[in-house]
């Protein structure tokens, strides 16, 4: 009995990590370049940030529900859950990328340009390294949120630790509930501390 629960816990934890990892990866691939683009085109900034902001306000259970009937993207299973998680993770990463780059000391940016750096050199060698701690702080917020939100993914058959939580809720079984909630919470704490450590190492300059 305990053995099979442990086994299931391991499987569900792995699923949870994969859900979160894949969602975070896609979100970063979209949000960071988009954030850079927004620093070049200030006119697009308010609308884009507002759109991403609105997505954030949709209750997660409802968002999963909205996605199910969509062709190609929707349906039951992990891929629908990943799309929803990506949408949630966008905002903190996008906003922090924009803020991080825009708050680079204007005198530093000016001297980079005046000494003959191309826009690409300036971005790669000056703006991104200086914005890195802020961007990473966005990744950290997104990771913690995504780990929590991913528990709801079980509602649309995506697996993960939410399976235990939903089963615990249905059976009014506190042990099952905790078996899902505690590993998820530990995972969030670990991600938070781990990324905090990376952040501090990067911002030592």
């Amino acid at each position, binding site marked *: 009995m305990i053995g099979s629960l442990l086994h299931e816990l391991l499987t569900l934890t792995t699923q949870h990590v994969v859900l979160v990892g894949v969602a975070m990866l896609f979100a970063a691939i979209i949000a960071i370049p988009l954030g850079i683009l927004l620093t070049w085109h200030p006119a697009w900034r308010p609308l884009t940030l507002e759109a991403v902001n609105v997505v954030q306000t949709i209750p997660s259970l409802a968002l999963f529900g909205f996605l199910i009937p969509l062709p190609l993207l929707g349906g039951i299973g992990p891929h629908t859950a990943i799309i929803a998680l990506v949408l949630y993770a966008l905002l903190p990463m996008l906003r922090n990328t924009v803020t991080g780059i825009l708050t680079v000391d204007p005198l530093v940016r000016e001297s980079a340009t005046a000494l*003959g750096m191309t826009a690409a050199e300036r971005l790669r060698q000056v703006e991104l390294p200086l914005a890195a701690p802020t961007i990473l702080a966005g990744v950290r917020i997104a990771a913690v949120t995504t780990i929590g939100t991913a528990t709801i993914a079980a509602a649309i058959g995506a697996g993960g630790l939410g399976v235990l939580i939903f089963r615990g809720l249905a059976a009014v079984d506190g042990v099952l509930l905790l078996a899902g909630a505690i590993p998820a919470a530990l995972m969030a704490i670990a991600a938070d501390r781990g990324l905090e450590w990376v952040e501090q190492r990067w911002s030592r300059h």
Partner: protein
Amino acid sequence: MPVVSYHGVSYSLGRRSILSGFSLDVEAGETLVLLGRSGSGKTTALKAANAMILPTAGEVLVDDRPTTAWDPIQLRRRIGYVIQEGGLFPHYTVAENVALVPRLLGWPPAAVETRVMDLLKKIGLPAEEFGSRYPRELSGGQRQRVGVARALAANPPLLLFDEPFGGLDPLTRLELQRQFIALRREMGKAAIFVTHDVHEALFLATRIAVMAHGSLEFIGTPREFLNASTAEARMFLECLHAMEVGDDRQSAP
């Protein structure tokens, strides 16, 4: 042939004119000081030399070629640029900051390293002790010196200074101004130096150009400047005399 030559340069933002009909030449070995109050257009004139600003009328010739015909990246890599606090990259060490332009130009690493060692020694911050420090570990005066070394690194024929010694205490400032004069003697480069400090202008300039409301009002040697009769130049000269008035008041009963 002048290193930089301004021909009737004007620059406006929308309907606001910032620089108008600005003409002068800067020769090798001279330090031209652009003296003016805030908003007089002196920084705009400076930035027109390395294509940070392109004139809306007239042209700026660098090595006989208009800045609009230069690839701005290539142009800037052969013009040194120093701003207040040096504008150093906070995430680069002192040595990395100084190495910047030679590295962008693709110098071999060994040549870059030798150049950085030489320059840091020249500005009195030897690489063994200061090379691996970060800008925040330096004093304001030291940062400023690193900024000068960075501007000199690729041995550019022209240097631009935008109020580089502005934020420094008077003693450090004097020390850096002396070092500036010593370096200039040794290197014989052309320099354009923007300041609003009339003492600094008199101390450093081989020629002083006074700017007011976006136009060149007076140009001449420091000696000529002391006898200038134009309005803005007289105002700046009064700053010098104001101190003498201070002396009078003290000696009055």
